[in-house]
């Protein structure tokens, strides 16, 4: 997920991104940012919207991952209302994993 330097909320976006690095996928033991599960973060007034996916629809760990996103963002941005939206368009695939995530998972390039 890229963050534009020109974005007026650039500093907050970086803060949100850093917070999301703390949310782990319990099965893969890698954080959701490195897995490429987060598609977009947007600040609209007092709301923080997160658009993300799961590695598979009806992922058994889906509830805990979404709860984790809420918890870390509520702690980081207590004055914001957090909204997490799930999408499977485009569906996740392992090409989205960052080089750090690939290293952690022992994935070949």
């Amino acid at each position, binding site marked *: 997920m890229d963050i534009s330097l020109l974005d007026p909320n650039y500093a907050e976006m970086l803060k949100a991104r850093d917070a999301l690095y703390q*949310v782990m996928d*319990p099965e893969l033991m890698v954080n959701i940012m490195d897995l490429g599960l987060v598609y977009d973060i947007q600040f609209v007034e007092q709301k923080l919207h997160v658009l993300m996916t799961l590695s598979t629809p009806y992922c058994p760990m889906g*509830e*805990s991952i979404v709860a984790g996103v809420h918890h870390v963002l509520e702690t980081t941005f207590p004055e914001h209302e957090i909204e997490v939206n799930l999408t499977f368009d485009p569906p996740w695939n*392992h090409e989205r994993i960052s080089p750090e995530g690939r290293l952690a998972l022992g994935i070949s390039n």
Partner: protein
Amino acid sequence: MADIHIGKAPPLSAVLPFYATGALYFMALCVQFCLSPDSLTGHYFNPHLLAMVHTAALGWGTMIIFGAAYQLLPVICERDLYSSLWAQWSWAFLTVGTLLLVLTFRNFEAGIWMLTGAILIAIAAILYFLNTLLTSGLCKSYSIIRLFMVTAAFWLFITIIIGYLLALHWVRPVFQQSHLEILRLHAHAGLVGWFLQLITGVSSKLIPMFLLGKSPRTIYLSMAFFLQNGGLILFLVIGFFFTLTPLLILFTSLGIIAGVFCWLLYVYDAFRHRAKKKVDMLMKHSLLSLLCLIAACCCIPWMIMQSGFQSVFMYGTLIFMGWITGIILGKTFKTLPFIVWNKHYKSLTGKQKIPMPKQLYKQSWVNLQFYLYVFGLILTITSVAAKTSIGLQISAWIWLLLSLVYVGNVWLVLTHRPKLVANEHI
């Protein structure tokens, strides 16, 4: 909140009792093997072996599969489980029914209690079938994996009905054929219809998921479905209404084996295109179990040609202890710790430091379990081949030790209580 429904996992009471009971039945199976290791040297139709086979097939294999399926059906079918209550009732019926059946088989008391056991298991199978069918939503959106799940559940019911009629036949004659002929049909309806198709369906979803692999060649799965079912139906129809000559057995078996081959091709394709190159111990368990299935298929021509029972014992050992046990030993710790973890820590992620699912059991015990499994299996098979009583006795004790390690690890997971570090935030 999310605008796409994530899906709620079924309650623990619909899943965990199956894992706990299955582990205990596995130990009961190994205890029976220790008590009568020589039952693998005489005729295969003997009370102790019948009791052991039904402990393995129902108390161990079917029990764990029911539990895992109730957890995984929502993942595979992308819908919530239709009824958790039916799942709980199916556990009660399967547990009591299996106990009755095993006890009556061990003393070979064909009669009211054996029939009652069979009826209870049939009720469990009906509940499972309806739950699978209604969860799958097969009529609304088709997928070959869902079709495998539903068809397997149907075959389980058919297997139990044949089993019930067989138990009735021992009280008053039902069939014109020999009970050994019907026993063969009953066994293969269970092995090919229930276990093979269930494992084909579940593994085709889970192995690529765990290895981050993918195969676009679902045509292999469709071919596997038609060949496995076609071969089995032909085998049963000929067996019931005509005579199964060695040539016909070979012909129908080849159809089923071709179906197995198509499924393995799909798994291999997903394995070859996996992103995760490192294969963990639990996946090795599963992959080794597939080799046991291939070895069991290789025994079939030998069984047809040989007049003794050695090949039958080899085949049975490879199927029950190699393939089914191997896949369960491998998959238990890929599912159970996550189910328990989800219950305790789901609401705490991102709030506090919490253990990960892999920390709910001892990895060193899983490693030990793997080596005992390999050693126990090799020793059992070589002892059956060489007809050595002492080898079978030693292998039985290895299996018992393995079951203790497995039960211990399952116990650790089931009795886990949340461990939080006070005031420590992430």
